[in-house]
C-alpha cells in the first residue's frame, strides 16, 4: 500500500473565514499533522485558481488524500471532488472540513478560539482522510416516466411539457375536475382573460395527449424508492394502481385563508374573501355593489403568520378595477399596509386602478380598521395615516384580502416523499436562492403555490422549470449512486440479523456464502444512512465514507488533548 500523503487546502473565503480565523496559524498547525505532506491557503479555494492549485499539488506532491477546509460540504463538495477526479485522484479520497458555517460565521467575536476550533476541525478531517478509500459509483437506470401530483395550472403545465418532451406522465388530481384553485377565479392577471379561456384549452390538450394519463379523484397513497425508481400507489374511486416513475413533481397548490374571526367574517353576510368575491361575480347578473371596502393583509404579515401572500394585493387591484369598470361611480377603497405591486405589470395595474378612481388608504397594524354594523357590515372605520384622522367608509360589501395558506395534506405528502416543509408549512426547497424548485432529495421537485404563494405566470414558470428538472434524469437515462453505501465484511459477520431488521430499505439479506451465512448489502437499494452499521455489534457492517475507523479517528483526534474521562 502506498504511503498516505495528505494535502490540506485552507480557504480564506475572501474575508468570510480569514476575517475571523487566523488562517496562517491553521496552515502552520496542519503542517504538523501526521501524514500531511502539503498545506497551502487560498483566497477562494472554490475559484478556478484554488481548484487548479489542488490539481497541481495532487500531481506535484503525489497527494493521495485531499482535505479542503472551507465552507459546507452540502454545497461545495461536488466541486472539489470533481477537481480531485480531474487530477486523477479518486474523488472519495477527498474530505471536507467546514470552518465557515461551523466556525468563522458563528464565532465572529472570538478569533482566538475560532482559530483553535478551526485547527481541531482540520485535525479531525485529516484523521478521517487517512482512512478514506477509493470507491466506485454504481449507476442505475431511470424509469422513463414522471409523476405529477396536483392538476392545477402548475401541475397541468408541467405534465404537458414533459409529455411534449416525449416523456410518459402520470398526473394525479384529487378533485373530479382539473384546474385547481384557479377554477374559482373569475379573470386572470395580467391578461384579464376569463379563467375558462386559459383552462379549457389546457385541459383539452392534456386529455388528448397520448403520453399523459390523468387520475381524477385520485390520491397518492404511497411513494417508495428513490430517483429513477419510485414505486407509487395511486388510489382513485375506482381503482388502486401501482406505478413506477423516475421522477416526481409536487404541484399541490394551496388554500385561500378563510379568515374566521377577522372583521366579522363568517358572521356578517356581506364580509367575504377575494376568492368568494370572484365566485360571486363569476355568475352573470349578480348585483354590483356601489360601496366596496377591501381590507388587505388579513391574516398575513401578522405575528402569527408573518409571511406576505405575494399576489393578494394584485388580486385586490384586479377586483377593484373590475368594480370600477362595471360602475365608474362605485366607491372602491382598498385599505392596505404596503401595495405589493412589484415589477412592470402589477405596478401598471396599480396605477391604472388609481386612474380609475380606486382609492388606497394605508392602515397600520397597530391600528386596524373596524367594521361598523351588527347584522351586516354597514361601514368600515379606518385611521387614515396621511390625513391623520379616522375616516368612516360606507360599505355594501367588505372584501377581505387573505393570503394562500399551506394545505393540511402537505405534512402527509412531505413524509411520504421524504422532503421537508418550511416553518410556514409550505414545501421547503433545497436552496432558496439557486435551487428554488428542487428538493434536497433527488428526483423530487416542487412548483406553484405548494412552495409559496405564486401568481399564474410565476406558477407556470416554476412548472416549466420543475418539468426541466424532472426531465433531466429521464432524458439522461442513468443516475449515479454515491458510494456511501453500506457493505458487510463477511469474514467477521455473525449473521445475527440486526442489520436486516433495521434497514429501512430492505437492502440487506442473509445469504449463504464462503463464510457460511452472512449479511449482504444490495448496493442498488442502499441509501447510505448507516443505520445498519450502528446496529452491528461485531463491526462487520460498515459504511463507505463513514466507516468506524474514519469516525473513530475523528473522535480520537478531537479528544487527543483531553485526559481520559468518566470523571465528573
Amino acid at each position, binding site marked *: 500500500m502506498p504511503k498516505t500523503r495528505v494535502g490540506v487546502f485552507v480557504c480564506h473565503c475572501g474575508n468570510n473565514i480569514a476575517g475571523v480565523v487566523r488562517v496562517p496559524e491553521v496552515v502552520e498547525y496542519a503542517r504538523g499533522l501526521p501524514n500531511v505532506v502539503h498545506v497551502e491557503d487560498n483566497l477562494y479555494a472554490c475559484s478556478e485558481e484554488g481548484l487548479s492549485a489542488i490539481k497541481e499539488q495532487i500531481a506535484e506532491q503525489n497527494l493521495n488524500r485531499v482535505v479542503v477546509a472551507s465552507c459546507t460540504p452540502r454545497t461545495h463538495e461536488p466541486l472539489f471532488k470533481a477537481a480531485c477526479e480531474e487530477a486523477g485522484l479518486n474523488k472519495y479520497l477527498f474530505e471536507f472540513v467546514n470552518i465557515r458555517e461551523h466556525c468563522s460565521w458563528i464565532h465572529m467575536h472570538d478569533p482566538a478560539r475560532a482559530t483553535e476550533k478551526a485547527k481541531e476541525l482540520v485535525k479531525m478531517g485529516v484523521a478521517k482522510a487517512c*482512512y478514506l478509500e477509493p470507491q466506485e459509483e454504481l449507476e442505475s437506470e431511470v424509469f422513463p416516466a414522471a409523476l405529477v401530483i396536483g392538476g392545477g395550472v402548475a401541475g397541468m403545465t408541467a405534465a404537458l411539457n414533459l409529455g411534449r418532451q416525449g416523456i410518459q406522465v402520470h398526473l394525479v388530481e384529487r378533485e373530479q375536475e382539473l384546474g385547481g384553485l384557479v377554477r374559482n377565479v373569475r379573470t386572470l392577471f395580467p391578461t384579464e382573460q376569463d379563467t375558462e379561456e386559459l383552462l379549457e384549452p389546457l385541459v383539452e390538450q392534456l386529455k388528448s395527449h397520448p403520453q399523459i394519463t390523468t387520475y381524477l379523484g385520485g390520491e397518492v397513497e404511497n411513494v417508495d424508492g428513490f430517483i429513477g425508481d419510485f414505486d407509487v400507489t395511486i388510489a382513485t374511486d375506482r381503482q388502486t394502481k401501482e406505478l413506477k416513475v423516475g421522477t416526481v413533481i409536487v404541484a399541490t397548490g394551496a388554500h385561500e385563508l378563510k379568515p374566521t374571526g377577522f372583521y366579522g367574517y363568517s358572521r356578517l353576510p356581506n364580509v367575504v374573501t377575494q376568492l368568494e368575491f370572484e365566485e360571486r361575480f363569476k355568475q352573470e347578473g349578480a348585483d354590483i355593489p356601489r360601496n366596496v371596502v377591501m381590507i388587505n393583509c388579513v391574516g398575513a404579515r401578522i405575528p402569527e403568520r408573518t409571511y406576505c401572500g405575494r399576489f393578494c394585493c394584485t388580486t385586490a387591484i384586479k377586483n377593484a378595477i373590475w368594480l370600477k369598470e362595471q360602475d365608474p361611480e362605485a366607491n372602491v377603497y382598498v385599505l392596505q399596509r404596503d401595495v405589493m405591486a412589484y415589477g412592470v405589470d402589477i405596478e401598471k395595474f396599480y396605477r391604472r386602478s388609481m386612474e380609475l378612481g380606486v382609492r388606497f388608504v394605508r392602515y397600520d397594524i397597530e391600528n386596524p380598521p373596524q367594521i361598523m354594523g351588527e347584522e351586516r357590515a354597514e361601514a368600515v372605520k379606518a385611521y387614515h395615516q396621511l390625513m391623520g384622522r379616522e375616516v368612516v367608509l360606507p360599505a355594501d360589501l367588505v372584501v377581505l384580502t387573505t393570503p394562500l395558506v399551506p394545505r393540511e395534506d402537505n405534512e402527509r405528502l412531505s413524509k411520504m416523499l421524504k422532503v421537508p416543509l418550511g416553518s410556514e408549512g409550505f414545501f421547503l426547497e433545497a436552496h432558496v436562492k439557486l435551487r428554488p424548485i428542487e428538493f434536497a432529495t433527488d428526483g423530487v421537485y416542487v412548483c406553484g403555490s405548494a412552495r409559496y404563494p405564486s401568481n399564474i405566470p410565476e406558477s407556470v414558470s416554476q412548472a416549466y422549470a420543475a418539468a426541466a428538472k424532472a426531465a433531466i434524469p429521464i432524458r439522461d437515462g442513468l443516475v449515479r449512486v454515491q458510494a456511501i453505501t453500506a457493505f458487510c465484511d463477511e*469474514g*467477521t*459477520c*455473525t*449473521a*445475527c*440479523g*440486526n442489520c436486516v*431488521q*433495521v434497514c429501512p430499505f430492505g437492502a440487506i439479506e*442473509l445469504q449463504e456464502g464462503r463464510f*457460511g*451465512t452472512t449479511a449482504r448489502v444490495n448496493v442498488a437499494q442502499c441509501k447510505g444512512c448507516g443505520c445498519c452499521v450502528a*446496529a452491528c*455489534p*461485531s*463491526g462487520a457492517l460498515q459504511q463507505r465514507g463513514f466507516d*468506524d*475507523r474514519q469516525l*473513530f*479517528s475523528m473522535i480520537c483526534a478531537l479528544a487527543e488533548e483531553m485526559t*481520559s*474521562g*468518566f470523571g*465528573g
Partner: protein
Amino acid sequence: MEDRLRDIVKKLLAEGGMEYLIGYCQGAEPLHVVPCFVIRQDDVEKLIWGPLCLQNLSKYVLQARELEGKVGLLVKGCDARAVVELLKQNQIERDKIVVVGVPCQGQVVPAKLEEVLGVPMEEVDGVEDIGEAFLVTIGEERREIPKEQVLREKCFYCKHPTSFEYDFTLGEMVPFSIDADKGEFALVEELEQLPLEERRAFWQKQFERCIRCNACREVCYACYCKECMFDKKMPRWLSKTPFLSDNQLYHLIRAFHLAGRCIDCGECERVCPMRIPLSRLYKKVQKDVAELFGYEAGIELDEVPPLVTFELEDQDPFM
C-alpha cells in the same frame, strides 16, 4: 432425577444422530461441578445433576455448527432463554440441537456455602436439594442449610425453574418464592436511588479492580462474534493497559451489546476473578429493556430485539 437423565441420554446416544451431549460432571473437588461432553454410552454415568450445576452450557452449543450430527444440551430454565436467543440470532438451527430440560429449584454459590458452614470447601462432600433447604454432607455430618443463605442471586426471583424450550424434559416445577419482598430489580433500584456521585463512586470502585482478563466475555453465551470488536486493530477501542476509563468503556459497551440479549444467566459475575458485581449492571440492562420497550430476552422466538426496532409512540424526552 439423575437416573432418568442418564436413561434419556443413553437412549439418545443409542438412536444415533446426536454426536454428543453437553452436561455436567463432578470436578476435582466435591463442590466443583464442570461441564462434560458425553460421547459414548460409557460416559453417561459421569452425568450428574444438582444445585451445583452452575454453568450456562449453551455457550458450547455453537460447536454444533461445525458438526454433521446434532448436539445435545442440558438446560436449566434460566439457560433455556439463551437457547432461544441463539435461535433468534441465527446462531444455531433448531434441528441441530437436542435440548434436555432439567427442572431446577435454585443453585448454590459455593463461596456463600463455605461462609455459612464455616468449613473449608474441600471438606464438604455433597449438596442436595431437598425442596425447602439444601442438605449438606460433611463427612458423617448432615446439615440442612436454608436456601436463602446460599442461593445464587438470580435464583431469588427465578421465573423459569423449568426449561420451556426442550425436546425432552425431566419434569415441571412451579416457580418458587424464597423471599417475596425481594423484587427482581431490587439491587438495581437500590443503586438507582443513590445520588449520582455515589453511583459514580460505586462503579469506579468496581471497575478500578477490573484487570480486563476478558473472562466475562469468554463465558458469555452472547459473545459469539468471530472477532470481538475489542480485539480489532482499528478502531482500537481500548488501550492495552487497564485504565479505569477504558475499563468502564469496556463494560459499558458490553452492556450495550447485551441489551435485549442478556438473559440473566449470571455467568459473567460468577467467573469474574475480581468479584465485580456485574449482575448489577446487567440487571439494569434487563430492567430498562423491559421498562422502556416492554421486552424480555429469550422468551419469544419471533419477538424483535428492542434496539433494532421502534414504535412511533416511544418515549421522546429529546424534543
